[in-house]
């Protein structure tokens, strides 16, 4: 089936909205409560809200970081200081009612049932999620007039995905919940590189997503980087793309109180033919040394601005991300038109072409570091091939 493209918005959410409106790069946005204060969410045009998904971001219910403090239904505020021992009995219903009412009144596309972040593979994961959020939210949704599509938010960790029994327990639980239309799935990978280079993780995520889809559930894949291209094989309903790195890879530390400010990264440009963001510092060498290197830089109005001599490259410039949205959404739209085996063949061809481009760079003497090279593509190809074999798309 065709999938939608959503923008995983952070505090630069206006860039996302502009990109959707001006360049047609998406079908809606996911608004994160940590990044956008409650009043500003309510003031967004109805046209935007109706296609948007609101992410309450209750991952750490005791930490009202950033704009989370402006939401009176955030657990820490609704319960006068979140305490997990009392919360389910005393405050969960109040918080759920407020959060559901907010989502319904603002007419968002779905009502998100939030999740508590739990590291590793806790034995009480399902029980905790049910008591803190799932049961109170389903009750609150049922008490609202009209039909509302409920999405269960889920953060699956690397460890959870790699344990077959744990994964089966999660799938049995999710698919057995009545009144839940789908899953807003966030997969947290432990790796430290900017791209996911773990074939096993990607393969298991593909399988997990497909299992949900085979249960006729909506699946929104949140916090994706360029691996959205690969994950499209699992027939998701929505894939996402974002501005800064913290919207393209889920890291719980960004929701913690003591998260120290990181130094801004160097500016990087998304190069669609490489399926990679490549540091500005390498662009000169690519243009000068790689035959046909200029053609690797996708041509669009943002590229034209950025490649003017007067342009000051900085990671906080909107053109970098608007360029990314134009190019990645173009790739994703083409993939979305295809299904099954044809989709796999197309994605495989894109990955193979990107691998060839990196090989040519290497042969031209351009030695990219591990955050700019194509080392993620081998993992993608392995995961994609393995998944395709399961589906009977290749021998």
């Amino acid at each position, binding site marked *: 089936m065709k999938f939608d493209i959503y923008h995983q918005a952070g505090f630069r959410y206006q860039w996302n909205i502009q990109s959707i409106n001006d360049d047609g790069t998406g079908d809606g946005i996911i608004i994160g409560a940590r990044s956008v204060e409650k009043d500003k969410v309510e003031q967004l045009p109805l046209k935007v809200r109706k296609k948007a998904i609101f992410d309450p971001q209750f991952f750490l219910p005791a930490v009202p970081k950033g704009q989370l403090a402006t939401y009176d239904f955030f657990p820490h505020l609704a319960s006068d200081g979140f305490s997990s021992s009392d919360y389910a009995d005393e405050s969960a219903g109040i918080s759920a009612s407020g959060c559901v009412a907010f989502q319904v009144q603002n007419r968002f596309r779905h009502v998100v049932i939030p999740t508590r972040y739990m590291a590793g593979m806790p034995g009480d994961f*399902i029980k905790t999620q049910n008591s803190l959020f799932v049961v109170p939210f389903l009750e609150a949704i049922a008490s609202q007039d009209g039909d509302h599509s409920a999405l269960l938010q889920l953060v699956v960790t690397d460890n959870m995905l790699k344990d077959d029994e744990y994964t*089966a*327990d999660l*799938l*049995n*639980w999710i698919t*057995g919940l009545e009144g839940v239309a789908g899953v807003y799935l966030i997969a947290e990978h432990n790796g430290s590189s900017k791209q996911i280079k773990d074939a096993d993780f990607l393969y298991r995520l593909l399988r997990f997503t497909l*299992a949900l889809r085979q*249960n*006729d559930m909506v699946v929104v894949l949140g916090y994706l980087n360029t691996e959205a291209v690969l994950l499209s094989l699992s027939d998701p309903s929505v894939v996402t793309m974002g501005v800064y790195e913290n919207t393209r890879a889920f890291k719980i530390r960004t929701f913690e109180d003591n998260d120290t400010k990181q130094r801004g990264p160097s500016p990087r440009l998304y190069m669609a033919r490489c399926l990679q963001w490549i540091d500005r510092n390498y662009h000169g060498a690519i243009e000068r040394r790689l035959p046909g290197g200029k053609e690797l830089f996708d041509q669009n109005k943002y590229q034209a601005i950025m490649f003017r001599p007067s342009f000051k490259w900085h990671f906080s410039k909107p053109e970098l991300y608007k360029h990314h949205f134009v190019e990645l959404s173009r790739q994703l739209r083409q993939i979305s038109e295809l299904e099954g085996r044809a989709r796999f063949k197309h994605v495989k061809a894109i990955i193979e072409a990107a691998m060839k481009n990196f090989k040519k760079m290497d042969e031209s003497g351009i030695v990219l570091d591990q955050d700019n090279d194509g080392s993620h593509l081998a993992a993608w190809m392995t995961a994609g091939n393995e998944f395709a074999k399961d589906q009977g798309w290749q021998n």
Partner: protein
Amino acid sequence: MSPAWPTAHQKVLRNYTAVILLKQGGQKAAYRAHHADHGNVVVKIGSYATINGLKRIQREVEVLRGLNSKYYPRNIAFSTEPPNQFVIVEEYVDSVPLSASLTQFSAPAEALAFLRHLVQGLSIIWEKRVVHRDIKPDNILVAPDGVPKIIDLGIARLLDDESLTRTLNARGPCTPNYASPEQLKNRKAQIDQRADQFGLGIVFLQLLLSGAHPFDPAIVGSGDSIVSNILSDKWCRAKLQRCSHPSSIQSLAAKLLGPEPFQRYRTTASLLSAITVCERELS
């Protein structure tokens, strides 16, 4: 009235005529009898050992009383007699157990039609968040018009109720040869309507295979027992393929027999829709 019947039973049965013993086992006996007001009925007389045992029986009665369907016998009365006897009176259904007529539905179209009836019948209790947990040919009666009646909700589970079986048993209440893997492993939290789908899958294949059990080691060609084959997901896929049924029937069977609940049908609508696909492919 036969003097061979227990004295306690005779006391109950004196209100009836034309009494015939249908079934006797353990602490329970079932009689067919005629009642002046209710016509032909089934009188079940038994004894309970614990309060939980009584509660389970009452629960079955309550579930049946809440149903008004051709797929279930109508409950007429329930009473208890000191010190520990219970009496259930139900509508008598002129029928034979499916276990005695498994070959009657071996044509794929007939097996599918029968399965559809069973799904429609079970969906009535599933909607009430009740899981039968003991779907097997002995618990399905076939009326002369071919419509099934589902009986014996004795171990049915009300998903919203507290469990009556707070035991440390390795296996949950079930008939092992027809139980889903999650029942056999006593994973209570995972037992929902999809556990019944597993039993339906076995029954459906028994119909197609003229009574053979799909997990029987003799049919599968490996395994120590039906239960061990259920737990290791070994059923007669190859035999079914050799029957050259449409691929949709093989997919339906495979999905009903999914080893994990998430691998079965999430909703009754999707299961019924899969049956429709099979029926279309057949026609």
